């Protein structure tokens, strides 16, 4: 929604890419900078012996779908809002899925436990048996869960893009 609204309102060719790049860079900056400062947990229970600020998780790879959205925008600017939303929503969702799934598989390996990806640092309240600590993939027993989830996400993505485009349109018309 934010990407669509900003693209529509600003008219800038690489608006979505710029926002995604800013998001990615700021999270990576937190990952790199926060562990430089010492910190101690003030509340129990403490499951992880933390001695420095804990970095956030590596950002979602929003850059890839954002670049695709910006490239598509140049070709579909004249189309209706609904058609645009029906095209951009699934494009965003499935391009993110295609890039994020293999990347998440990498993040679950011990090779990602380094200063950049920081998958070995957990908040003090995360117990040692949590899947994120054990690097476990939580597989849902229901076979249709993934398909059902993707279906719901596609609808949400289309609606979200439509709202974003509507808000973007409104923002362009603001006079005072």
């Amino acid at each position, binding site marked *: 929604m934010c990407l669509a609204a900003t693209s529509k309102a600003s008219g800038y060719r690489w608006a979505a890419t710029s926002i995604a790049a800013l998001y990615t860079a700021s999270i990576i900056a937190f990952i790199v900078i926060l562990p430089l400062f010492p910190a101690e947990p003030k509340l*129990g229970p*403490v499951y992880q*012996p933390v001695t420095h600020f804990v970095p956030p998780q590596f950002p979602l790879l929003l850059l890839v779908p954002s670049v695709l959205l910006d490239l598509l925008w140049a070709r579909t600017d004249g189309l209706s809002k609904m058609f645009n939303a029906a095209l951009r929503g699934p494009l965003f969702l499935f391009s993110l899925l295609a890039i994020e799934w293999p990347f998440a598989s990498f993040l679950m390996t011990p090779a990602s436990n380094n200063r950049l990806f920081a998958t070995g640092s957990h908040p003090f309240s995360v117990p040692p048996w949590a899947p994120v600590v054990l690097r476990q993939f939580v597989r849902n027993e229901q076979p249709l869960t993934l398909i059902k989830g993707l279906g719901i996400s596609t609808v949400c993505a289309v609606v979200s893009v439509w709202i974003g485009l509507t808000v973007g349109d*409104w923002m362009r018309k*603001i006079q*005072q």
Partner: protein
Amino acid sequence: MKRWKWLLCVLVLFSPTSGYAHVGSPDFYAEGQAGPYKMSIVLRPPLVIPGVAEIEVRTESPGVSNITITPMPLTGEAAKHPPVPDTMEKPSKDGQFFVGHLWIMGAGSWQVRFVVNGNKGEATLSIPLPATAIATQSMHKGLGTLLAVLGIVLLLGMVGIVGAASSKAMLKPGHTSSTTDTRRGRVSMAIASLALMVAVVSGDHWWAVDAAEYAGNIYKPLQMASVLESGGVLDLKLRDPGWLRQRNMDDLIPDHDHEMHLYVIRWPDMDVLFHLHPQPIGTGEFRLALPSMPSGHYRLYADVIHASGFPETIVSELTVPKVRGVPLSGDDAEGEAAPVTSGVADCQHESGAGVTKQNSGEKRFELPDGYTMI
């Protein structure tokens, strides 16, 4: 092996202290020795979780300059990693009285670790603190009214912003609203009002679901069915009324050498008391050959401890005829007192100043297994 580790842990924590609590009251009173310093401690666990535990300490020897307190789970991984300790304060000129507060973030069996610094060096004492939600605290009426008024103002403001954003905000400077602009603004405000009402109703539903989930975490003690079988054998069956999934009935550990300490008190006179030790015969089932006891209606209070260190006092009642039972053995004990009248017992209490009348609640009975009854 694991069982012995739990036992050792609990025994180490309990060994330097004597503590007591009251059924139905969450407060915990303890006397303990932190190295050379004797301390009287009051722990008031929070009524809700997460919540703040209030702690009071009176050192019975002068020279204590500073006490820090640290909350830690009694067992498990988190028992190895203490958070940063809090320093207790002296609220008055009394140099031997300290108060402190600790956030308890989860239900379960905790310990408060006291580190005492004074003219005799540094010493440590740990006191168990069972913590669980026992109530749902309601919001103060005044605060609720204030938040409701502010919420209504916020909602009206949002509707107004939507109306302005969809009409006047799109007018060029100097132009006035046309009928179309006004109608568009009103339609937008109506849609925004509807959307906000849906949001408020959804929020109320979410709140109700969350409150119901919390209510499910409020402590429900184990229940106990007591049956007197032929031959004066008492059979006790425990039942879990449903509480946290982590609670089991097959993880009870010995405390002072017994998995269950049973207090049998004749009611309402409270003139006959037994301290017995039923033996486990299966998961959640205990059995005991009763000693000789007079007929009457008795209340039963059974103390058990789970492997996590979480203690429970289970209550039941039993009416028995006169029993000619087995002699007391081992740590078993019995006591008799004058019947309680008018709700308060008067008893003759010997003191250094002579014979005085005192409330029976101030008398202590040292039991063979290390417990003290008050």
